[in-house]
């Protein structure tokens, strides 16, 4: 019997998996960002403000139980077991008072993106499936 070895996801040097990093980079693509890690090696994703300061406006950390989103003052904006569950909570955090404009803008964009991904993509997929199924039949009529 031969054992097939499945390829393991390559971890990023800073502790993020490539799929997580892609997702985060896509969510906050309007902002510059960087990555780092805590003393215990837990990865952090820093959403930065505009040049020339590049001050951190949001920070996402992956801890043992899930993801934590906090602002530049260490206030926890939301916690979620999975990245895609950030949508609703990020949207709620946008409305929170006391956040900087840049932080709110970054959160708002993130929330919109996630909502689009969650709500609209399944509809598009369904439509594509329908098209794929009926297009040959429609073509036969023409």
């Amino acid at each position, binding site marked *: 019997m031969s054992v097939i070895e499945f390829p393991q996801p390559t971890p990023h040097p800073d502790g993020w998996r490539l799929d997580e*990093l*892609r997702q985060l*980079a*896509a969510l906050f*693509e309007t902002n*510059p*960002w*960087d*990555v*780092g*890690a*805590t*003393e*215990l090696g*837990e990865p*952090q994703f*820093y959403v*930065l403000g505009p*040049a*020339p*300061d*590049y*001050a*951190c406006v949001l*920070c996402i*950390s992956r*801890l043992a139980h899930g993801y*934590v989103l*906090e602002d*530049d*003052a*260490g206030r*926890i904006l939301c916690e979620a077991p999975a990245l895609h569950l950030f949508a609703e909570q990020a949207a709620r955090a946008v409305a929170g008072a006391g956040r900087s404009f840049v932080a709110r803008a970054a959160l708002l964009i993130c929330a919109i993106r996630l909502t689009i991904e969650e709500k609209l993509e399944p509809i598009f997929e369904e439509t594509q499936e329908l098209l794929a199924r009926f297009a040959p039949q429609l073509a036969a009529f023409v």
Partner: protein
Amino acid sequence: MAKLRTVEKSAPKSLELRKQAGAWLQEQRKAAGLSQIDLAGQLGLKYYTFVSQVENGFGRVPTESMEAWAHALHIAPGEFARHLLRFYEPELHRLLFEVTS
């Protein structure tokens, strides 16, 4: 991926100074015999992630919690704030403490 480490090479002065502040804070924390978790606990933070954010040079110690950080690190609050001001607001630090009239 659209923007991978967009600020990596041309790190501006303020970012570089925040990194220096973070390194100094990490040094002080270690000298006080604290882990990031210990320090976060003393500051009343739920997670230690903010301590890491600051030490990595991305965040700043908020003015309103400088006193608490100073006490936790066994540094006089005035001295602590003055030292951080050198990194966070170098021009203000220069005007306040370096320029002689």
